[in-house]
């Protein structure tokens, strides 16, 4: 599975690792054993695996903080295995879990580290520092003169990312950058980082032991087993649908189906039609709408077609005919927008105790309905599509190279 997945064949390879081996002196087994991996430009590639699988060592081989015993590293097609390591590292952003800000330097000096090494002039450095602080959402005037110990953990992490981006490297290495941060801040920083990545489009190698973080952050995930053997290298969707072996399946864990519905969105599935009536309609009109459908309830919309109430026959029977529709039935809860994930949608349903959710657009206008069966079908469909794709690929492979 170390071969490039078919879908990425047309993207440019930014980093190529070729048969990398790291054998630490005094250890019987190599820490990284013959690792080959292609990393595509502009992608976040996650190295994920259990503790001690060599993922951090692998990352440090790329900027040669650890020198490989054998094998080759290519950056932009150039062999950098034996180039000057200090020069190489100045082209590669580096963020570690402990962040490692210099405690005796101001935030501005910390961020200016690499530009100074590259000999930028003072004006350019000062402008770049302010720009980066703004990029990571910190006010330059308030923060540039402060010292690291005056910042919170989340702020230090932002400064760490800003510092890694200071000389605008194409490639960034991040070793559990959100590992030491509380879950709420971590979630926020992850989202911010993904939004930032949409603008900066860097090639990022990201190490984590947390499969959920890998699925959330990764364009592509390399699941590593002992000695950095690549168990599977693919997009999160395909890994979840089709784990390559028991190790991967085990590592993803029992929650694979749940994680999968966290990846597909409401806009990717077909919405159901549902009978609706305007809130100005009479009870008689609503009864007719109910009779002409097999659904048990009708959705009442206001004049802007925004969902208001669910009304069924029972509600009609129990209330006098002169009550407005807006006052009877059940509230139209469990409302989602098209960009919501299926997992969010399911969550909304469970919270509202309904078996369906109403889909609206940004202006809150009614679009359609998603119910539990639709979600179930969508998951099944993903799995079958993937199986079909694989079967086709295998048949092709057998025809050409007669591989087992």
């Amino acid at each position, binding site marked *: 599975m170390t071969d490039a997945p078919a879908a990425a064949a047309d993207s440019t390879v930014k980093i190529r690792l070729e048969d990398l081996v790291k054998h630490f002196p005094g250890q019987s087994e190599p820490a990284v054993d013959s690792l080959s991996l292609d990393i595509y430009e502009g992608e976040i590639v996650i190295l994920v695996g259990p503790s001690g699988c060599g993922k951090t060592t692998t990352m440090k081989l790329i*900027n040669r*903080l650890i020198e490989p015993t054998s094998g080759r590293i290519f950056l932009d097609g150039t062999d950098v295995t034996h180039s000057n390591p*200090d*020069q*190489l*590292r*100045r082209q590669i952003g*580096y963020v*570690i*879990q*402990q*962040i*490692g*800000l*210099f*405690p*005796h*330097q*101001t935030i501005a000096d910390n961020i200016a*580290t*690499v530009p100074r*090494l590259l000999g930028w002039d003072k004006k350019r450095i000062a402008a770049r520092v302010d720009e980066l602080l*703004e*990029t*990571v*959402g*910190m*006010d330059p*005037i*308030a923060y540039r003169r*402060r*010292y*690291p*110990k*005056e910042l919170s953990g989340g*702020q230090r992490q*932002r400064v*760490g990312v800003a*510092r*890694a981006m200071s000389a605008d490297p194409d490639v960034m*290495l991040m070793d559990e950058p959100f590992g030491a941060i509380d879950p709420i801040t971590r979630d926020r920083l992850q989202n*911010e980082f993904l*939004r*930032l990545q949409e603008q900066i489009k860097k090639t990022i190698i990201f190490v984590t032991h947390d499969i959920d973080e890998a699925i959330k952050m990764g364009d592509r995930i390399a699941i590593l087993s002992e000695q950095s053997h690549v168990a599977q290298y693919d997009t999160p969707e395909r890994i979840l649908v089709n784990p390559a072996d028991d190790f991967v399946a085990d590592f993803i864990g029992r929650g694979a189906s749940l994680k999968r519905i966290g990846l597909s969105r409401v806009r990717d599935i077909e919405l159901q039609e549902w009978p609706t009536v305007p809130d100005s309609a009479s009870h008689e009109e609503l009864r007719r709408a109910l009779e002409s459908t097999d659904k048990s309830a009708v959705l009442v919309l206001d004049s802007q077609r925004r969902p208001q109430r669910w009304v069924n026959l029972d509600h009609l029977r129990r209330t006098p005919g002169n009550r407005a529709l807006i006052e009877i039935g059940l509230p139209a809860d469990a409302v989602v927008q098209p960009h919501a994930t299926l997992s969010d949608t399911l969550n909304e349903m469970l919270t509202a105790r309904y078996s369906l959710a109403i889909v609206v657009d940004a202006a809150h206008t009614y679009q359609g309905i998603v119910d539990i069966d639709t979600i179930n079908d969508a998951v099944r469909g993903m799995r079958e599509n993937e199986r079909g794709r694989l079967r086709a690929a295998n048949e092709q492979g057998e025809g050409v190279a007669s591989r087992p």
Partner: protein
Amino acid sequence: MTAPAPQASTPTAEVRASEIDRRRRSLAGYLFMPVLLTVVLLIVVWWVSSTDLGFTAQRRLSMDSALTRGWRHIQLTIVSTAGVLAIAVPVGILLTRPFARRITPSAIAVFNIGQGVPSIGLIALFALWWAIGFWPAVVALIAYSALPVLRNTMVGLEQVDPSVIESARGMGMTRLAVLARIELPLAIPVMMAGVRTALVINVGTATLATFIGAGGLGEIINAGIVSGNELITVVGSVLTAVLALLIDYLAGIAEDHLRPRGL
């Protein structure tokens, strides 16, 4: 990304900044020691001048002779401490480099010998083996006080957070740049504590230099002991103590100002 409101965070930042400043002393803190030492000196002067001394004692305790010996004492202290810095700091740096890990224990053992031998014995040994006078005394003092500077240099460098060094190396700083710009500045507080210890040891031990003819305040103390004049002994000891406290005080100020901000 959402910026935390600057208005909301500025006050806390000011509080924190003043916490950093508070670690440097207040004016009263700076003045206490010099005032105390001046008072002690004035008491000594008043006591000496109001006591009827014999002719020899008067000559020994004249302002002139006290100043000459005090100056010699300061020279012994400063020169030997400078020697200690010149030797122990580079050796301490070398011994903390990865390539030197294996020879570190034996190197420290060598420095331990200097500290292990009793000071008077060490000074006598140097006099026997070399000569009497200023320089043998300086060398003996160096051998005696090098260990605290060496140890603190090593401890200071070793306590630097490895993740700070890793991130510096990971950004492409050379080993030498990491040492000069990251490790040494961060090790300064611990190293300075070692230097203060060496200074105080040297002030005290330099009183023994008189036995190999290197002068210093030890001459006054010794003269008091030899002539059985308690007053002279007490004055010599008090002057040594005042000098030790003064030097420690000055080193403390230097330490405050050398400590990098932000620590």
